[in-house]
């Protein structure tokens, strides 16, 4: 039975059919529809999806803020419904809002957060000073929080989430409102926290580049369900493929090349737009030279050729038929005003 014990210790998050329904204006919104997720110690997982996909609601259930309508979740080995206090002691949480009270001073709040997690006054003060320094808050830490800029407040939130060096850190859209430099700074902090403490990190984001750069594992969520779950590179390799664009001197050349390509690469998706040919195929880097040789042999001269590696957006597009970028434009709220449906 020893292996199962080890497994239990190493599993930081385990959910089964995690579900959340909200009632808003007498209609039931199924925000999360049966999520099964397992996260091992030390993993860095990004929940990626458009606004309203259920990412934040999932995170709020995992952090004990809201109770699941159905299903179960264990976080840090404890049940989120029946052992809330134990779960709360294990985790750090950086929500979408500002954690520090606007009437308070940043450093006071930072130290208080450390004390809340059982640190002594001296330890909290030392650790707060360390974080203030490294998050570039020295100038503003002793000012009232309401006088800070959005980016400064966000960095203070991050400091508050990190002060007790939690085993398991949840971040809800952490880099919203940060400039590129501070975003990089935040990513560095998360990476170094993991390296030094083997912290498990779960974050939600709708920034594709952030998920790509930060996470070793991307869980794509759409309409309250997990639609894909893998490393960014495998997701892209398996679910999107490369995009090859070849331009010819006229449409008839392109037409001939299209027919030829379909024969050569039956798995490729070939689309012609005037004199241009779009080929979606896996392993495009190996296929492109061969295609060019074949076109040349057919006497269809190529004007230009280009290859683009897939992005996570291509993955999402392939899975759902919609672009994540479009989803961002038509942002839908994540039901903050909805009433809870009793279980």
């Amino acid at each position, binding site marked *: 039975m020893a292996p199962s014990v080890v497994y239990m210790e190493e599993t930081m998050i385990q959910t089964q059919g995690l579900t959340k329904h909200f009632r808003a204006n007498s209609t039931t919104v199924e925000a999360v529809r049966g999520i099964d997720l397992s996260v091992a110690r030390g993993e860095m997982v990004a929940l990626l999806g458009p606004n309203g996909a259920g990412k934040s609601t999932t995170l709020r259930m995992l*952090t004990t803020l809201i109770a699941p309508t159905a299903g179960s979740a264990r976080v840090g080995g404890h049940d989120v419904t029946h052992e809330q206090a134990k779960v709360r002691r294990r985790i750090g949480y950086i929500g979408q809002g*500002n954690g520090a009270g606007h009437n*308070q001073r940043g450093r006071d709040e930072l130290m*208080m957060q450390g004390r809340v*997690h059982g640190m002594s006054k001296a330890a909290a003060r030392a650790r707060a000073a360390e974080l203030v320094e490294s998050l570039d808050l020295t100038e503003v830490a002793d000012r009232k929080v309401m006088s800070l800029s959005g980016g400064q407040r966000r960095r203070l939130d991050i400091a508050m989430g990190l002060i007790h060096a939690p085993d398991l850190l949840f971040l809800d859209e952490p880099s919203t409102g940060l400039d590129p430099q501070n975003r990089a700074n935040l990513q560095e902090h998360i990476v170094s926290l993991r390296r030094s403490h083997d912290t498990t990190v779960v974050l939600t984001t709708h920034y594709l580049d952030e998920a790509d750069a930060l996470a070793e594992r991307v869980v794509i969520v759409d309409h309250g369900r997990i639609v894909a779950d893998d490393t960014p590179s495998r997701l892209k390799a398996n679910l999107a493929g490369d995009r090859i664009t070849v331009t010819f001197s006229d449409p008839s050349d392109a037409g001939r090349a299209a027919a030829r390509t379909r024969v050569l690469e039956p798995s490729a998706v070939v689309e012609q737009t005037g004199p241009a040919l779009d080929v979606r195929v896996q392993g495009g880097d190996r296929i492109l030279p061969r295609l060019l040789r074949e076109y040349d042999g057919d006497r269809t001269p190529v004007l230009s050729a280009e290859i683009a590696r897939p992005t996570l957006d291509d993955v999402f597009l392939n899975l759902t038929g919609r672009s994540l970028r479009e989803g961002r434009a038509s942002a839908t709220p994540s039901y903050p005003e909805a009433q809870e449906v009793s279980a």
Partner: protein
Amino acid sequence: MSTNIARDTALVFTRELKPVVRDPFSVLFGLIQPLFFLALFAPLLAGVSGLGTSSSLQWFVPGVVVMLCLFGTSTTGANLQFEMQTGSHERLLVSPLSRSSLMVGRALKEIVPTAVQAVVIVLATTPFGFRADVPGAVLGLVILAVFCVGLGALSYSLALACKNNEWMFWVVQQTLLFPLLLLAGMLLPVENGPGWLQALSKVNPLTYVVDAERALFNGDFSTDVVLAGAVAALVMAALGLLVGTRAMRSSD
């Protein structure tokens, strides 16, 4: 477990007090309104009642002290409401702090501004002839402190209940504030009012607190009056903390 709750409560209490300590003048802003009442209403009262200024102050000042507590403490839920909007309440909910400490620590903090303001009012009216009986005033403040813990907890509960529409907090608070204040005989004695008004006054717990304060500040330790005030304050505190901790437990 109980030491944990005590530690948690102390942490919440200290946090709530921090802005007051950092910016002590904020407590004095709460005094502006009552000072106007004292400066502009007390002389009218002296004229109407035919008593001298100092006698009317002996009657009026203890009522103003309770009024101060009522104004300051009943609005305190707005602070929590603001924290619910910005996200710091959520941060505390995810922390290991016990839910009851989040309510009790906040409610206990209400004692501090109430006590400071009461002392300032007594000192400010002394040059005009007000004389407070010191042991009586101390006991009076203890009763008031117990009362304002309950009132503060109810204000926070109201804030939690009005999570999705902030304005509702002010509608309820403003609707209840003046009836409670006037029916407690804080500004004018109720004894001269019609019977129905006197009956309403009798069911207002604040009436007993005001009566006890008036007696104690004047050095009158009549057991029945003091006891009634203490019981009203204790009932208020028990009710407030009960409702408040329940509201906090179901907060998300």
